[in-house]
């Protein structure tokens, strides 16, 4: 038997989804517009997409590019951000570069990248990489900058070298902040993934979506939006579970510290 709080916790999201679908259904029936299928029509189109081998291959190809772009971005951005946070010289060098890249929509770079690298996986992965990098660099930088200097001094007194301090003190101490950046990066990876496939149509979840749009298969379009949205929610939920596990130490188990001197 679940407690009332637990019932609320699990029932609320379900109710919210049902509510959204109900509003959609009613609005669609009221508008009677061909390009706005009902929720039931859209949901009914999902099994045929997921049951189609070609579509599945496309979606998996998208996910693979996303994983590669995200993984590469995290591997490069975390060390760079941490170094920038600990060294004024490194920050002074990279900051202007990042300031220039920051406001540019990464998809806007795609035409140029496509000219250089073609319309294949490399181009799309690179765009995802660019989209993920900036928030991860920024949060790693902020996390590293905020570290209590005396924590590093304590490590130095124990005999840790500068590199050991970066890996064994700065990295774990900044981890909560880094993972906040990674979570933003994950959502951006999904967004840039779809955008890149919209621009360079060849394969992928975005390709299915926009092909269906061209052919006027609006139930498929909406079904793909639901699938992509569900992917995003699942990835975020998985990431959040991993994050919460990794930084359990930064979230107190007790509201009040123990009162013992």
């Amino acid at each position, binding site marked *: 038997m679940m407690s009332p709080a637990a019932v609320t916790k699990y029932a609320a999201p379900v109710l919210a989804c049902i509510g959204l679908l109900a509003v959609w259904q009613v609005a669609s029936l009221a508008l009677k517009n061909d390009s706005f299928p009902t929720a039931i029509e859209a949901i009914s189109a999902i099994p045929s997409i997921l049951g189609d081998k070609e579509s599945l291959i496309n979606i998996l190809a998208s996910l693979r590019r996303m994983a590669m772009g995200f993984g590469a971005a995290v591997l490069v951005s975390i060390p760079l951000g941490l170094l920038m946070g600990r060294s004024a010289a490194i920050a002074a060098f990279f900051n202007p570069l990042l300031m220039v890249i920051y406001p540019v929509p990464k998809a806007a770079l795609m035409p140029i990248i496509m000219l250089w690298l073609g319309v294949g996986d490399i181009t799309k992965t690179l765009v995802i990489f660019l989209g993920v990098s900036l928030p991860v660099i920024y949060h790693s930088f902020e996390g590293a900058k905020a570290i209590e200097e005396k*924590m590093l001094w*304590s490590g130095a*007194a124990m005999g840790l070298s500068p590199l050991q301090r970066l890996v064994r003190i700065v990295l774990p101490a900044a981890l909560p902040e880094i993972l906040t950046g990674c979570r933003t990066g994950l959502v951006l990876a999904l967004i840039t993934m779809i955008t890149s496939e919209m621009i360079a149509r060849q394969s992928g979840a975005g390709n299915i979506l926009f092909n269906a749009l061209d052919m006027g298969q609006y139930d498929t379009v909406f079904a793909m939006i639901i699938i992509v949205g569900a992917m995003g929610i699942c990835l975020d939920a998985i990431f959040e579970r991993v994050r919460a596990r990794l930084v359990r130490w930064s979230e107190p188990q007790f509201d009040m510290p123990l009162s013992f001197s």
Partner: protein
Amino acid sequence: MTIVPARSSEWVRPVAQQEPASAIIEIDRVSQVFQTSARKDHVALSDISLTIEEGAFVSILGPSGCGKSTLLYIVGGFVSPTSGAAKMKGQAITAPGPDRGPVFQEFALFPWKTVLGNVMYGPRQQGVRATEAEAQSRALIEMVGLKGYENFYPKELSGGMKQRVALARTLAYHPEVLLMDEPFGALDAHTRTRLQNDLLNIWERDRKTVLFVTHSVDEAVFLSDKVVMMSKSPGRIRQVIDIDLPRPRRRNELLLDPRYQKYVVDIERMFDESDEGGVSA
């Protein structure tokens, strides 16, 4: 009463005349100048010379802004002096090292490590085997009064408990000198008193050399063999006072001891005469 002017004290002498046998730390004409935001030079420390003997408990006492913490950081190797030099056993101090263990007011624990993980960190870094490091660390945690809290994270502990962990973490890698930077400054009065008592009990077992920075006259007199009084702007040593009180010291006896009271009153009066605020009883 052994209040003597700093320059004529046995305690502070030109470096050349010291017996190297008993001196563990020598601070030789150290000055520290910081550039403030207004591009003006701020002299934090001016021409400090001080020798600390092995096994002594020495407090550096002064108002905030007198550079007393900076002096400690120089000995720790965390900060390089603008001029002059600090030496540890005759070797110039250029970097931090496990022979000098700091305990900071900010605790500076590793929040991602448990109490045990924090205390084991130093020994593990020094290459002590895990089982051995764990056994030693558990004993230290018990000694600082935290048995049962080995698997707690710093976030779950009170300020006093955190500082106990920080002390155990530093003691764990056996530094020859403890550098304590206002370690009890962030604690409430009751907790502070308990930690002072416990620190004395622990110290009296092995009499490690301690350099202890504080702005509390009480605390300095209660704990120390020597009190180095500093004045500010620029930070200078104005007096070195031997605290000639018997050990082991018990708080309840000491507070009633007229000699203790006289030290406290005399030191406070000297700070008052020079109109230096920020030093409290």
